[in-house]
């Protein structure tokens, strides 16, 4: 199950809520304002690393990172374009956490 998150973790609890429901192996894809979660050096770094350690792959949509001036992402985070987003959707059913 692919989980997409589109909210900044700084003003919305969607990320911290969604991770409670993650199952082993479920990937997370950050889109829209959600990508602020993976900016290198922010206070969500430890959370992102703990998700990665539980074998949950973490992706961020590159056009959304670029649009927000985020060039450095937390270690272990993979960036994808819209075509990569489509590939993830082909591999998994989708849970869009609005």
């Amino acid at each position, binding site marked *: 199950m692919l989980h997409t998150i589109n909210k900044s973790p700084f003003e919305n609890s969607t990320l911290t*809520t969604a991770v409670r429901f993650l199952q082993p192996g479920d990937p997370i894809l950050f889109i829209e304002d959600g990508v602020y979660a993976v900016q290198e050096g922010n206070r969500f770094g430890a959370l992102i690393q703990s998700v990665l350690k539980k074998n949950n792959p973490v992706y961020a949509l590159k056009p959304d990172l670029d649009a927000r001036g985020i060039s450095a992402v937390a270690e272990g985070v993979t960036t994808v374009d819209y075509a990569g987003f489509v590939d993830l959707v082909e591999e998994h059913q989708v849970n869009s956490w609005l």
Partner: protein
Amino acid sequence: MDTDIKKIMHVMRRAPHGSIYTYEGLEMILIMAAYEQDLSLVFIGDGIYALKKNQDTAGIGIKGFSRTFMALDGYDVEKLYVDRQSLEERGLTEDDLVVDVEVMEASEIGQLMTEQDVIIHH
């Protein structure tokens, strides 16, 4: 895809009257209920407030709909799950809710999520 019955989960995440999402979500659920799919409703975070007893919306001029959740049983929608942590964080118990629900751990709800064909958040 085969034509078997689909598992469709509706996830209620918002408080009821500050925005229309829960109300229109409920309208969607009532229509889908007529299609005899495997429907479930999950209440997470502020979504739980939609089920709070004693809501009186007369003063804000918005139609109340908490009682509509009580009608779901008549549409054979019987899978109503509540996230335990969300309930407890809000200082609520099952007795505060207008319908019978199953209170579950996030890990159990997460497992149910992986079994779904479609998940819609409201």
